């Protein structure tokens, strides 16, 4: 590995961590799309800042652009408050308009300005190590590493200082105001940190891919845990892993680094989305199938309980009367038989003692709807599952 390579990976990892932290809270607060809006609408701020400072990494530009981000949030909320359109429409109206203003500002001054939309939207990490911070003749490393490092330390510091406040205002805004922690202050604080992070990161990874770095690690972690601290940690791990794996993927394909970082993020998310132990797609589908079987089983047992006539309890009757397909009827029968709930004699189905007991409990649950009844039944269901 050459030193620019190491530096690129370091920048990528720092950007990933810096994005993951506000990202977790945005995802939890159902405001993930605000990051998308901010990442686009900071364009006019960046352009204006660039006209003034002529330097993409200057702190003034970052501040101006972050201010535009906060203005976006305020505008969205103002439009929403009028009640004329829904929240998502408000977001969808504000950021393209601001973005258009930015594009037009660039286009009108394209001749003498060294800045184009591609650079802002897509970014290029490969060039980041060449823009170096030189302090009194001494090479201190890439500028963007310093910039993102500062932002990261800032947001880490805020996170540790206000962890409790952030947590309570995220999960229960009412309780938070009752405890004297203003959710509004927390909201705008988070928005400001997000804006600053987006602005700092756009230069390295581009405006759209910032969104990926914010949302994807948090969403992936959300599928794996319900604990805030663990979610923060996991999303940082996913972010850093994708940043470094993405760099090497780009290296081998000779393609855009930010693009391949996002692709790795996407693959990681896809894997977790499919295979996460409790909240993943496959486990959800499996659980739903089991629940369908359980409901069918109870329906069937109740039916047996209600009818003493023989023709109602004949095996063939299942297909005709309860309107089940042959295979489903057979699955349910087998399941009930395997658990000693029923006895089949001459194609007539009888409830066993255990079956009667179980049905009785189910009936009681249905009539009283008290939770403790279903708890015992759940244990019984584990028998089928195991």
């Amino acid at each position, binding site marked *: 590995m050459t030193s620019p390579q190491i530096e690129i990976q370091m920048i990528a990892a720092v950007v990933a961590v810096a994005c993951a932290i506000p990202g977790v809270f945005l995802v939890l607060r*159902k*405001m*993930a*799309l605000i990051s*998308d809006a901010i990442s*686009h609408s900071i364009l006019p701020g960046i352009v204006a800042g660039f006209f003034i400072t002529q330097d993409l990494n200057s702190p003034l530009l970052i501040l101006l652009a972050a201010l535009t981000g906060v203005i976006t949030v305020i505008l969205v909320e103002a*439009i929403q408050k*009028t009640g*004329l*359109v*829904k929240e*998502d*429409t408000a*977001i*969808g*109206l504000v950021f*393209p*308009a601001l*973005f*258009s*203003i930015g*594009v*037009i500002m660039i*286009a*009108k001054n*394209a001749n003498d300005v060294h800045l184009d*939309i*591609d650079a802002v*939207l*897509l970014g290029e990490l490969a060039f980041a190590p060449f823009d170096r911070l030189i302090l009194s003749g001494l090479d201190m490393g890439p500028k963007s590493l310093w910039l993102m490092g500062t932002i990261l330390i800032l947001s880490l510091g805020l996170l540790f200082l206000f962890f409790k406040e952030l947590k309570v205002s995220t999960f229960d805004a009412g309780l938070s105001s009752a405890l004297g922690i203003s959710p509004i202050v927390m909201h705008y604080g988070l928005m400001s940190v997000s804006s600053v992070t987006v602005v700092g990161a756009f230069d390295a990874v581009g405006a*759209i*891919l910032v*969104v*990926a770095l*914010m*949302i*994807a690690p*948090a*969403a992936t972690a*959300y*599928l794996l845990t319900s604990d805030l601290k663990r979610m923060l940690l996991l999303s940082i791990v996913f972010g850093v892993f994708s940043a470094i794996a993405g760099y090497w993927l*780009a290296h081998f*394909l*000779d*393609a*855009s680094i*930010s*693009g*391949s970082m*996002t*692709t790795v*993020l*996407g693959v990681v*998310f896809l894997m977790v*989305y499919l295979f996460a132990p409790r*909240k*993943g*797609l496959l486990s*959800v*589908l499996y659980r739903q199938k089991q629940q369908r079987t359980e409901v069918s089983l109870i329906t069937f047992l109740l039916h047996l309980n209600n009818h003493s006539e023989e023709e109602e309890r004949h095996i063939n009757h299942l297909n005709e009367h309860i309107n089940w397909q042959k295979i489903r009827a057979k699955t349910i029968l087998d399941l009930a038989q395997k658990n000693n709930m029923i006895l089949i004699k001459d194609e007539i189905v009888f409830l066993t003692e255990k079956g009667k007991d179980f049905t009785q409990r189910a009936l009681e649950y249905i009539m009283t709807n008290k939770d403790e009844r279903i708890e015992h039944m759940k244990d019984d269901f584990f028998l089928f599952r195991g």
Partner: protein
Amino acid sequence: MSVAEYFELLFTDYTLRTITLGTAVLGAICGMLGSFAVLRKQSLLGDAISHAALPGIALAFLITGAKDTNILLLGALVSGLVGTFWIRGMTSKTHLKSDTALGLILSLFFGFGMLLLTFIQKQPNANQAGLDKYLFGQAATLVEEDVRLMLIVTGISLSILLLFWKEFKILLFDEDYTKTLGFNTRFIDILITFFIVLAIVLGLQTVGVVLMSAMLLAPAAAARQWTNSLGVMIVLASIFGAFSGVFGTAISASQNNLSTGPVIVLVAAVFVVFSFIFSPGRGLLFREIRFRKNRRDLKLKKTLQFMYGIVKDHENISHPHAIRILNNFQGFTKKSLQRLEDKEWITLTGQQWAMTERGFEEAKNLYSQQRKDD
């Protein structure tokens, strides 16, 4: 070139005519289908899908190696649809919320698309230049064939819309009811989503990935302010969309260095702002005026009520009283007294007021709902 010159040239210049027609048709179809997106609370679907279309374009190019617009758009359509249904799946099967799902699809698909695009650019294939026009959109590259395609799609979606009008409408307003009536809501839902995705994909070439969502939303959001009827809203949104297209093209053609997409979006934004403020039913201006009027009415009636309290114990209701005795009730001014007189509820003579028969009746009925306000 000034805007006036542009409109003169419109009838003679082939390129200009094609582009204008293209943006107008695009604006109309986006307005039409965008109305559904807005009403179904899927406003940001447009944003997500336009980004999600990128890998489709790149893959279509990688597979066929040709830069045929129709094939690229087909690729975009497929990947847009995959994105849409994945968003659906995510929100219905896992506990990720719709905003996270939209953001994920948007950024992950786009990132993958960027990877493919940069990968293609490194390939020794001279044909690849110009794929990035789908990123930012270039109305100037519209040719007659593109416009024809847009017209065909508009025609098809219009006829589908008319054919399934009843179903679309009922699904928009009450999904559960639709289901109980025995309609196949899933089919209607997929149909309408398909056409929204189609409109988005069509617009990519003209306004680009980022601005597509505004194309879809802005005309519909503006139209929504003027009416409560779905039919009128769709027609209005199409008109707003078409006008944004034409004006946007006109303004950008009349200036140097002004790309069409952003100007169209800004024109559409002007429509939205105008509608937000000036629409008679919902607009902010008239709402404020109504609000003030109501407050004034309320104050007036409070004064009247106070006077009624004084008068009702007298035998002669029109017995004059000094204005002075109203003093411990602060809610009156000279102006409001004057207004009460204008309504013939009281008569003023010098420093005295006297309630009229009409005013007495009015005050008596203030709190009963029997009489309608005039």
